[in-house]
């Protein structure tokens, strides 16, 4: 262990002995991955628990939205473009990966602008780009729309399922729950600004720390959260100043605001969270793939008995859910806790006796 992580781990151990049981939620897929990659839980004392919140936009994409994607991608003249991690997510209507294996033209993108390139190279085809992600990727989709307008690229549309973080956090952490503090997503905050998370402290009375993604950055943020818990002084602190400012990336925010407006959104396993989605503004409605392809509204209610929302907050365990291990398995998941390989339910399923 290098001196930074050694010191930070020692600091965490000392503070942990003074604070009782603590549950810290993170809400970012990259935090989830890196916490596992660096083995962070093995460095923490037993009373400090990390839980993975709904920070993976892939995992919280509703079954209806995946069904819409499968519908669009299955159309004869369509080239469907999406990020790799979205391909495998299953829903009752199938998955994009299964369509790809069956020979439909579903292509991997590493940038939304890949879709523009594909559209130009295939003027007789319709290109549909699957716009998923939070505030980190929404500005890029907005840039794609702007570029399509500027270049007159008419054979491109976006299946827009972008979501935003603050309302989802507000919704989940309102009222009584076991979450002591929030590890805030560094990439989202680089766009929104750290001030966008100040409500966690001021309204929800919980410490919040915007964190980077290296091991020492995550440990430093955890240390800061424990310190605020010990002092009973919840603040929102920016622990990632090299990438995040209080006001964020104004240009990205303006671009998002130009193309999108807030709307309600359905989160897989949780249900409708008011104001947590992004919809096209009227003047850009022509880029909306749902309208262009007249995608049928497939009534796919998130099952009432799915306990993901409570499991995400640490209130219930996976075994408490009636679907766990029966209708809900990694191959056939109901909610995000099972979709994500790092989700509580997926982890529990893997290690069940």
């Amino acid at each position, binding site marked *: 262990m290098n001196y930074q*992580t050694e010191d930070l781990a020692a600091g965490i151990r000392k503070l942990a002995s003074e604070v009782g049981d603590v549950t810290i939620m993170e809400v970012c897929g990259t935090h989830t991955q890196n916490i596992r990659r660096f*083995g962070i839980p093995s460095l923490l004392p037993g009373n400090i628990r990390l839980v993975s919140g709904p920070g993976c936009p892939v995992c919280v994409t509703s079954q209806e939205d995946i069904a819409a994607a499968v519908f669009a991608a299955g159309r004869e003249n369509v080239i469907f473009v999406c990020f*790799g991690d979205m391909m495998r997510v299953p829903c009752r209507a199938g998955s994009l990966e299964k369509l790809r294996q069956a020979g439909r033209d579903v292509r991997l993108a590493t940038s939304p602008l890949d879709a523009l390139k594909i559209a130009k190279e295939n003027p007789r085809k319709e290109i549909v780009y699957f716009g998923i992600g939070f505030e980190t990727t929404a500005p890029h989709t907005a840039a794609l729309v702007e570029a399509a307008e500027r270049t007159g690229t008419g054979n491109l549309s976006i299946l827009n399922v972008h979501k935003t973080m603050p309302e989802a956090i507000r919704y989940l952490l309102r009222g009584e729950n076991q979450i002591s503090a929030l590890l805030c997503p560094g990439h989202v905050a680089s766009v929104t600004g750290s001030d966008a998370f100040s409500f966690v402290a001021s309204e929800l009375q919980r410490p919040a720390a915007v964190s980077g993604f290296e091991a020492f950055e995550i440990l430093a943020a955890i240390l800061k959260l424990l310190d605020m818990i010990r002092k009973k002084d919840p603040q929102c602190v920016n622990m990632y100043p090299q990438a995040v400012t209080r006001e964020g990336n104004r240009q990205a925010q303006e671009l998002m605001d130009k193309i999108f407006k807030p709307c309600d959104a359905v989160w897989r396993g949780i249900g409708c969270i008011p104001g947590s989605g992004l919809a096209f503004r009227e003047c850009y409605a022509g880029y909306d793939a749902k309208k262009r392809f007249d995608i049928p509204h497939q009534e796919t209610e998130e099952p009432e008995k799915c306990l993901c929302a409570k499991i995400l907050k640490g209130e219930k365990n996976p075994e408490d859910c009636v679907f766990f291990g029966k209708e809900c398995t990694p191959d056939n998941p109901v909610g995000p806790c099972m979709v994500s390989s790092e989700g509580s339910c997926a982890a529990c399923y893997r290690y069940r006796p």
Partner: protein
Amino acid sequence: MEDCITLEHGSGGAKYRELVEKVFLPAYSNEYINPLNDSAILSGAGKIAMTTDSFVVRPLFFPGGDIGSLAVSGTVNDLAVSGAIPRYLSVGMIIEAGLKIETLQKITASIARTAKTAGVSIVTGDTKVIEKQEEESGIYINTAGVGIFDEGRIPPSQKIETGDRIIISGCMAAHGMAVMNEREHLGFQPPIQSDAAPLGELISAVLRNDANIVHAMRDPTRGGVAATLCEWAGADTDILIRDADLPVRPDVSAACRLLGLDPLYIANEGIILLAVSESSVYSVLKDLQSREDGKNSRVIGEVIQGSGNVAAETLLGSVRKIRMPRGELLPRIC
């Protein structure tokens, strides 16, 4: 001959004969295949090893190899890790109509070249032609491989034992990243080179030394090193590896980090994993490292008492679990 393969080439008549005599025979030429009998008559008594594999990779050509070289080295390696000396290969091809004959010649030449390097003979083959399935005509290759055993050479039991050390013979993840870069047009420059290579001689260098006690050997192809280790960990053994000791080329490592992929899970076609007794570690390493294709060999972990878990000690000294991979490995963005 025409430019492209047609259905007629697969119908067993004059056009088929022309293909065999002008493309395949000149490339493979040996005493077994030249008579063009229905079966090749081979020599060798005692125990034999046999394996089969099919190759459907797209694109057909990628930096560092092609479907032909992959077909030979993949089959040879499956025989070699079982402790056999690879000797004979069959090559069955299913070709989509429209494939350029020039492409077929390139692939055939690559098969012949790789077979020569590996010291194996292509002794029999078959060719069928079908309608093309996608926009670009492709080819699918099935091989069967036969190997013999040297007297006195004990093939590995393929069961790891507590106390064994895990050795890797080279850098990880090159093949999977090379093919992904080509297929998905990711644009990494310079293009990542596959590590596909026949490893029969590398393995012979280890097995012919009586001092080397090898309990298990595998070439970690699909699913990467992680899949092999997860398959090896048994009812009463765990495997613990160290991230600091895992060899990865800088260009492969950079591509993996950018795409959010773990090199442990990416396919390899030119390295082997060995589980060897603690007493023979240095001897095995010496034999591997004395060769160009084994110069990056090192110990990456050990087998301890346990119950089937695989874990890695990270650079921080923390521990992360290594699980059996599921599904296709795709780049992630979040």
